[in-house]
């Protein structure tokens, strides 16, 4: 793959890198690219959509509900773009309002209550930035979703389907395993937004796409994504059924691995994953991690023996551990 930027030397992305990144952005936004509700019936049985945030409304830009995977229940939550102009308008082009994130939180709490894993699908240009969304607390809704996910007592598998657009994506994107379709992208800001803010121009979106390292391969290298799911043929849009098979197999493999964890280990590992993101130097020691960090973390572990600490491993009874199954779907 040519997305890697290790060859860059601070001169800005090469023409080749720009071409490659922009191709991915276009594939991620392809009008025929399968959306959450295209894939769900191809992957799971009995999906039953649930509606509403129990406070204000029902946001069609986020869909969710329980379904069965190999006869075992999971909770599905995903962004939902439209497939044509009309449905795109009703779905607000997949850009949620606060009530969308609050619906997602409600469904996660339900999954937590009955101990079934959560599987989320990311496909949004971002949370909607309009005045109504601001009024109803877009920032609070995203923050509360992120917080809920970091403490959820069931396994969470995240799949980046198309566009992983900033906070609106991360709001349902904190998990134990983050998988990405080969031509999906994930970014802190849209390339167009970065172009206008950082290059002060509308014309540098392609350059920004490369500079931001939005592609799945880049995200894998940065550690934001744990594994890439290859797409069929010309890309996911060319074969929804084959895409669904690949995504389903990847979810299944991830859930089987996660079933080996008790709740405490699951939460500890998810915390460590979120906590470990980023790159910095610690001057003086030169180490990437501060010397006292591990001991600090051990002390936190002790502190979390405190009352109220979660201890439900029920999902592990529903999902057999990886040891129970053939290793064929696991990598090296």
């Amino acid at each position, binding site marked *: *793959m040519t997305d890697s930027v290790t060859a860059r030397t601070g001169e800005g992305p090469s023409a080749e890198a720009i071409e490659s990144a922009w191709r991915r952005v276009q594939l991620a936004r392809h009008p025929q690219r399968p959306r959450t509700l295209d894939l769900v019936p191809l992957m799971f049985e*009995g999906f*039953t*959509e*649930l*509606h*509403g*945030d*129990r406070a204000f*409304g*029902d946001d069609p830009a986020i869909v969710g509900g*329980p379904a*069965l995977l190999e006869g075992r*229940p999971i909770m599905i939550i995903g962004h939902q773009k439209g497939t044509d102009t009309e449905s795109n308008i009703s779905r607000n082009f997949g850009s949620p309002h606060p009530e969308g994130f609050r*619906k997602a939180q409600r469904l996660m709490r*339900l999954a937590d*209550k*009955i*101990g079934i894993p959560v599987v989320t699908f990311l496909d949004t240009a971002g949370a909607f930035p309009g005045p109504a969304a601001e009024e109803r607390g877009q920032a609070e809704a995203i923050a509360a979703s992120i917080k809920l996910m970091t403490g959820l007592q069931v396994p969470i598998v995240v799949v980046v389907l198309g566009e992983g657009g900033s906070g609106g994506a991360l709001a349902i994107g904190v998990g134990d*395993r983050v998988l990405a379709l080969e031509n999906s992208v994930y970014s802190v800001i849209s390339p167009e937004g970065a172009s206008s803010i950082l290059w002060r121009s509308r014309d540098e979106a392609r350059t920004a796409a490369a500079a931001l390292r939005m592609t799945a391969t880049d995200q*894998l*290298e940065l*550690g934001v994504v*744990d*594994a*890439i799911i290859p797409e069929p043929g010309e890309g996911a849009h060319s074969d929804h059924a084959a895409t669904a098979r*690949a995504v389903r197999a990847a979810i299944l*493999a*991830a859930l089987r*691995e996660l079933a*080996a*964890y*008790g*709740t*405490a*280990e699951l939460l*500890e*590992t998810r915390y*460590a*994953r979120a906590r*470990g993101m980023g790159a910095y130097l610690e001057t003086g020691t030169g180490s990437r991690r501060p010397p006292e960090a*591990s001991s600090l973390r*051990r002390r936190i572990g002790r502190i*979390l*023996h405190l009352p109220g*600490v979660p*201890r*439900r*491993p*029920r999902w*592990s*009874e*529903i999902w057999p*551990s*990886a*040891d129970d199954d053939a290793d064929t*779907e*696991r*990598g*090296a």
Partner: protein
Amino acid sequence: MPIKFPFSRRAAPSDAWTKCPSCDAQVFNKQLERSQRLCPSCGHHFRMSIGERIDLLIDPGTFEERDAGLESVDRLGFHDDRPYADRLEASQLKTGLRDAVVWGVGDIEGRRVAIGIFDFRFMGGSMGSVVGEKLARCFETALVERIPAIVVSASGGARMQEGTLSLMQLAKTTAPLVRLDVAGVPFISVLTDPTTGGVLASFASLGDVVLAEPKALIGFAGARVASGTVGEEMPEGFQSAEFLLAHGFVDAVVPRQELRGTLARLLRLLPVPAVDDGAADDDDRSWGPLGALSGFAERLGGAVSETIGIDVEAPSANGSGPEERT
């Protein structure tokens, strides 16, 4: 042991036909009984008796009524233009029921549930001490037997003739839901025409899943009370099942023909988790030394090769990971 039905299974009055309030068609009562009380012309959902609900939802022969002996008491000596005791008696004669709710256990497509069902004909389905007690026992039985709870509501609200004792039924029926949450036992609330007042302002709004029948009147304040107090026009479609769906309080509006199937599917999708017993539970509660896990966390942050599936090794295949469980 099964208890014999003490109540009449038919809601339709003895008149030969009923006028549909939606389309004005004259519908034969016998036809209504055969058609799940749906208007054959427009599909209007007529109200159902408890017996008809059981027939609609529960596998034949599996329903066992519980606590049939509970009966209301006129604790306040309440008397408006007629004593409370007389009103109770009239409703009992009209419906063949002791009070506005019957609860019991039964199967839906082979899955056992604890289910409570309202009959609106009994004093407007109002919730007094007996209704509250029955529903609380229904929830507590769901908790103890670890079976899902379902309540099919049809109620004008709290029973005024019992004063604040009826208001306190809101807390009595809601308190067990905290325990169902802790125990992981699902509760499905089904709202039928009409569900208002204190019933909607307690357990009925708090289902893990809330279903509603089409065009059912559902709201907090009676529409007349609301417009009287507020002096505002009510919006079109206000307090309907569809209005609540649009505003985020109902998961789905389910036509009666699909209600049993939807409940059965939800019971499969939202199973009651197995209980962790004794040792296994204690084992899981202990937070392992984090040092052992940090290796795994490091690997998560590092580069992994691009394959389908995830090639971070499961920690149980690794000396430093969490211990295996059985």
